[in-house]
């Protein structure tokens, strides 16, 4: 691996200045993804700016409810936080379904959002990948693509975003607090990750040097009735082959409000706005949940090996929502 320099900045301003000044610098959080990629030669930073010592490691209740999660809060700490467990079970579930205990002890909140795809071709420098090396082609498009995207992909890239946490957060309308060279800015999480389009190497809408300092989760009382369902090839320590984050607010039988997001289907955590729209204001039934999923998945374009994701996502949408509705209806 490439020899690199290592620095622990004194504060956020120094960290951002270092990244701004050095195009070969990268932030280091828990290192659970970046260090692997450095060993593989997929990422080759010349300077690591370790942000885990910055005072960004607390979870605080917002003034009007909600949460403000520091960027370096470890996944295991966040999952165990009493407010997360009480008010946002979808978050706790998504965190605990991810990776292994050891990895969750290291991985940070912001690092989780910014982790790279686990597409096999991205991780192998001997194979073509537009994300890793723009212009070389996408070997996954016609390759082993069972794990990859069914929504929002382009001919240039069919990668999926691997995070579970991001799926839960996007369902909750989370907002990312960012420090950019020009100052602080808020970015809705739904606008953080890009679709691949012609530039799969650009994964987020953040400018170079931007540092996520916190994630704000707005108050959402009905999120106490929320869940995360993750389907994977083995029972633990595996990325999702499909997942759904869901929260449901019923007024009697009628859907007053709903949140739905899908994981492992696209280059970004996929908020299912069309499905939500179809559900709102209607009496909830399993059939309605299936119709809503179908509406969202109408745009799906499965690849050669991942057609199963369409019925899979449909099935887990129905299961998640009927579970939340508190009764399984035929």
């Amino acid at each position, binding site marked *: 691996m490439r*020899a690199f320099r290592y620095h622990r900045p004194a504060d956020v301003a120094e960290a951002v200045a270092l990244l701004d000044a050095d195009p070969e610098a990268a932030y280091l959080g828990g290192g659970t993804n970046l260090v692997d990629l450095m060993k593989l030669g997929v990422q080759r930073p010349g300077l690591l700016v370790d942000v885990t010592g910055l005072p960004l490691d607390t979870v605080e209740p917002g003034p009007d409810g909600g949460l403000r999660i520091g960027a370096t809060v470890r996944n295991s700490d966040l999952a165990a936080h009493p407010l997360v467990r009480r008010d946002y079970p979808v978050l706790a579930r998504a965190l605990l379904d991810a990776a292994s205990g050891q990895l969750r002890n290291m991985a940070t909140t912001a690092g989780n959002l910014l982790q790279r795809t686990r597409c096999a071709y991205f991780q192998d420098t001997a194979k073509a990948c537009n994300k890793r090396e723009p212009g070389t082609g996408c070997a996954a498009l016609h390759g082993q693509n069972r794990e990859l995207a069914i929504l929002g992909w382009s001919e240039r890239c069919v990668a999926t975003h691997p995070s579970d946490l991001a799926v839960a957060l996007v369902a909750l309308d989370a907002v990312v607090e960012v420090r950019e060279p020009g100052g602080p800015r808020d970015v809705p999480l739904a606008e953080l990750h890009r679709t691949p389009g012609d530039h799969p190497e650009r994964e987020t809408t953040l400018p170079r040097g931007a540092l996520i300092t916190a994630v704000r989760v707005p108050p959402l009382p009905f999120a106490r009735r929320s869940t995360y369902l993750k389907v994977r090839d083995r029972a633990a320590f595996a990325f999702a082959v499909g997942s759904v984050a869901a929260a449901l607010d019923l007024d009697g039988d009628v859907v007053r409000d709903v949140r739905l997001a899908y994981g492992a289907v696209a280059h970004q955590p996929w908020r299912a706005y069309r499905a939500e729209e179809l559900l709102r204001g209607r009496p909830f039934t399993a059939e309605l949940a299936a119709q809503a999923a179908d509406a969202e998945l109408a745009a799906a374009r499965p690849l050669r090996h991942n057609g199963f994701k369409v019925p899979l996502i449909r099935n887990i949408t129905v299961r998640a929502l009927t579970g939340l509705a508190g009764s399984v209806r035929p």
Partner: protein
Amino acid sequence: MSAPPVGAVGREHPRLEGRDKVTGAARYAVEYPVENVTYGWAVPAAATRGRILRVDAAPALALPGVLDVLHHGNAPRLTPGVDADLFLLQEPAVHYRGQFVAVVVAETIEAAREAARLVRIDYDTEPHTTVLSEHHPGLYRPNKVNPSYPTDTEDGDFDGGFAAAEVRVDATYRTPAYHNNPMEPHATTARWRDGRLLVHDSNQGSTPVQATLAELFALPREAVRVVAEHVGGGFGSKGYAKAAVVLAALAARQVDRPVRLALTRQQLFGPIGYRAPTIQRVRLGADADGRIAAVCHDAISQTSTLTEFAEQAAVYTRSMYAGRHRRTTHRVVRLDVPTPFWMRAPGECPGAYALESAMDELATACGIDPVELRIRNDPAVDPEQGLPFTSRNLVACLRDGARRFGWADRDPTPGVRRDGRWLVGTGVAGASYPARARAAAAAATAAPDGTFEVRINATDIGTGARTALWQVAADALDVPVDRVAIRVGDSDLPAAGVAGGSMGTASWSWAVIRACEGLRDRLRQAPGGAVPADGLTVEVSTADEVRAQRPLPRYAYGAHFCEVRVDADTGEVRVPRLLGVFAAGRVVNPTTARSQLIGGMTMGMSMALHEEGLLDERYGDWVNHDLAMYHVSVCADVERIEAYWLPEEDPELNPAGVKGIGEIGIVGTAAAITNAVHHATGVRVRDLPVRLDKLLERPPTR
């Protein structure tokens, strides 16, 4: 169970080296402190078939700390004709993608790795073929199958018997490439001094590795020493010298300094061998009562263009169940792929998946309970040799397993049991594995203080072999275990064969017992029974005795029972219970024996549900080449695994009366799982693994 043990054999005992391992004191191949050590990094070919035109090492050599780049143009010469797979860095030819074509040596591991990236290699590539298919025009009949079984067998009139059968099953089963993935990669520390080669190497048998290195480097055997004191698993892939030790030795000679070289996880997917993918057609013809009249097993697998390795998948069928008309065949095709090799129960493991699945299909077709079907087809004598088995307790395993599992009154109807979101089913499969032994030498020394040391170049690859031999030695010497020390894992010790083929303990304990017996005889003859100040040593070889063994059918047997739950919405499979009962001769150490059996069963479950090398035919390699993408079962996949064994005395085995337990646990497990998946869902998955998408998308086929 049997009567309580009198001596050490049969008693539970933790591994002698257990504490050293968990505290980190036990040293593995690249953990020995070595002065002036350097680091080697292997460079894999980025072409699938062709020739190296040019190697430009200059950018790599320019990196600080880089000492040398070895390739076919400058590496020390090896003896041709020893082993085509090990003739590394000698020729420009590329036979498969990932073949090691260069080695970088540097002062640090990081510099070596970075420089490996900078070695520029130009190739002249040729079209390649890397996909196994039953329609491949290159399929041929090998002269033998691994290791030396006849390729095809025929007895009676299969075609006639099958055509006349009342009930027929004709099914084709497919298994993917499986990768051994020991925890410790293939790794070596190599040094040369005064023309002698010393390697600390991770392998399953340093006597054969010593022999291979001596041949490759044209040295007398005494000039090569191979130490493998602790080995972090191998599952067959370290049963022979592999690339890491050869590359390290080449590099150490070139730079004239010690070299440490460990393969990466990614580099373990191919160059060190793998379980060949198979396509197996099984035909069973039976009467309405399920009595088999005709059985045929046709197995297809792949090998490389370098070395022929023919997975003996149909051999299992030759001796397992009755049937007058029998045929087995093997065909292979040479592809532009790495050479497949041993992986835990080569042959029997994929073969049993096919036959034990077909048996389940026959049970369904006949409307007979699958345990009962196997009992009805238990042969009185070995169908292949026509001789009585030295012991055969398959039926006892099936009956005991059925009782323990609660198999009685099972409703055979598939796809009708539901518990909430789960479809529930149960499955069974039989298992057998040959009980073999090979010649070995061992030495036993008595010291004047009443203690003993027993030496044999056995290899403990994590199985507990060291501890088992220590127990055997104590009993053979008729002394308490605390007066006995055991040394293994060094080619300077008396020569012994590999930890493989489930014959390690059988072979090694034989030599240990004879050495200890010989020593006791000498002690009895010693004047006044006194041990001389410099000790008394007896060294023996079992070569003559093993050679004189009668050629009888010797097998261990087992039966697997399992419950599976399949998520009706997602196709996810969980295994609440996996239970195996085995008959494998005497059990030396119940602690480590249970680990071996449970480990095999777990690996069989992993084979059934998770593991699969995903080949990209455009590149010719497996793209999911790490443990994040190549899934191995985790604890959460199975709630309860139980292994039991029946007391079994078989005087035709070896002095310790053991059959070997390293592999029987994986044989048949996959079929038990897929049979249970069929019982749960009505879906018969005939191509492993049982991924959730196969249960989600396929309509039930009853």
